[in-house]
C-alpha cells in the first residue's frame, strides 16, 4: 500500500512527514541503543516476510504484517517501518522520498493502535480470546492502513474519492488474509516463544 511519488499535495506530504517524525521520535525515545540488534533483526524478518506472496483466488498479494509488527515492537514499529520503507524505496523504488513520511504513518500508526488494543488480549489464557484478537489485530491493521491511504488521497485531491473507495474495498480480502495469518502467527509465537509477544522491546515496561 505504498503511495507513489507525485500523487499527493504539499499539505498532505508535510503533515505526513510531521506525524512520522513525531511517531519516530517517540519510538526512538523508547528504544534502548542496546536493543538495536533486536529491533533491526526483527525488522529484517518483517522486510523478508513482506516479500512473501500469498495466493488469493487467481491472483496473489504480498504480506503487510503491520499488525504483528505493532504487537511485537509497540511504538518501535515506527522506526522499524520507516527503515523498511526507506530500503524498499532505494532497492526497488517502491514509494519514494517525499512520501516516506506519509507512507510510514499509514503503516505504522495502525500498528501502534493494534499494539494498544491487542497486546494484552493476544496473550490471554482463553484460546478463543487470544485467537480472535489475533485475527482482529491483523484485520484491523490493514483496514486502518487502507483507510489512512484513502484519506491521504482524498485530502490531496477531491477527485481521488472513487479511487480511494475502491482501494479500501479491494483490500477487504487482504484484511481477511492478514487476519488469518496474524491469528496463526500469534498462535505459533504463543506456543513457541511467548516472550516475543507484548512489545517487550520498549525500554519502559507497561
Amino acid at each position, binding site marked *: 500500500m505504498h503511495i507513489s511519488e507525485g500523487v499527493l499535495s504539499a499539505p498532505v506530504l508535510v503533515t505526513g512527514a510531521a506525524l512520522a517524525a513525531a511517531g519516530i521520535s517517540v519510538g526512538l525515545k523508547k528504544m534502548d541503543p542496546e536493543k538495536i540488534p533486536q529491533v533491526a533483526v526483527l525488522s529484517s524478518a518483517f522486510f523478508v516476510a513482506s516479500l512473501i506472496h500469498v495466493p488469493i483466488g487467481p491472483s496473489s498479494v504480498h504480506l503487510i504484517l503491520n499488525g504483528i509488527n505493532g504487537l511485537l515492537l509497540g511504538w518501535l514499529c515506527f522506526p522499524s517501518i520507516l527503515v523498511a520503507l526507506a530500503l524498499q524505496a532505494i532497492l526497488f523504488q517502491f514509494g519514494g522520498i517525499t512520501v516516506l513520511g506519509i507512507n510510514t504513518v499509514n503503516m505504522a500508526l495502525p500498528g501502534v493502535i493494534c499494539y494498544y488494543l491487542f497486546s494484552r488480549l493476544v496473550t490471554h489464557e482463553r484460546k478463543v480470546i487470544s485467537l480472535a484478537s489475533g485475527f482482529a489485530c491483523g484485520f484491523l491493521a490493514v483496514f486502518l492502513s487502507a483507510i489512512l491511504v484513502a484519506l491521504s488521497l482524498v485530502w490531496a485531491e477531491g477527485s481521488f474519492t472513487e479511487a480511494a473507495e475502491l482501494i479500501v474495498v479491494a483490500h477487504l480480502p487482504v484484511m481477511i488474509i492478514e487476519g488469518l495469518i496474524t491469528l496463526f502467527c500469534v*498462535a505459533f509465537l504463543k*506456543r513457541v516463544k511467548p516472550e516475543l509477544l507484548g512489545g517487550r522491546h520498549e525500554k519502559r515496561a507497561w
Partner: protein
Amino acid sequence: MEGNTLIINLKDISFSYAPDTPVLDKLSFHLHRGERIGLVGPNGSGKTTFFYLVMGLLRPSSGTIEVFGKQVQAEKDFRDVRKRIGLLFQDADDQLFSPTVLEDVAFGPLNLGKSPQEARDIAMATLTKLGLLGFEDRITYRLSGGEKRLVSLATVLAMDPEVLLLDEPTNGLDEDTEEKITDILKGLSLSCIFISHNLDFLSKTTDRIYAMANGKIFLDEALVPHSHIHTHKFGRLPHEHKS
C-alpha cells in the same frame, strides 16, 4: 526393462549459482528401482545442489532430468516428483517450521490432500514406527539436535515416498541416535541416495558408493579393506573414525 526400473535419470546437467563458477558440470547419473546408493564428496562439491536439482528446487542451466520415466522441467512437473521422492535436508532446522511435532509430520500428508484426521493418523503411525511416540505435542523448536533429525525423518517418511534422498542424516548425532537411524534406514525397502561423510554408516546402509568431484559423479564400487596407523591425543577415550 530399463524403461521400467529407471527412476532418476540425469543427463549432462550443468548448474552454477554465480556466472563463472560451475558447481555441476555435465553431470550424468541414474538410479534404478531398489538401488541404494551412497554419495560422498568434499565440502562444497555440489552434493546438496544435486539433490535440489532432482527435486526441482533449482533448475539446471542445461541438460535433462527424467524422473519415473517422464522428463521434468517446469514447476508443475516437479510437483508430482515431490510427492514420490522424499528429501531430508542437511539442516533439520530448515525442515521443521510448525510449532509442534505432530503438525510438522502431518504437513506433508495434508499437502497430499489427506483429510486432517487421516493426516493425524498417518503422522501418529509414522512417529510410532520411529519410536517417537509421546513426542507429538513437543515444540519442534525446543527439540535437541538428535530429536530434530529423527522428527525430520518422520516428516519425510510420513509422505510415504518411493525414493529417499537423505542429506547427511547422521551429521552431528551422538552414537546412540546414529545407531538408531542406521537401524531404521536398514529396515526400509526403498530406493535411496544418502549423502554422508560417514563411510561406516554408508557401508552399513547402501550397496554402492559414488563420489562427487569436479561437478561430476563417479562410481567407486571396490570394497577395499585397509588399515591406517596413526597417532593422536585423546586416543584413549572411545572414539570413532568418521571419514
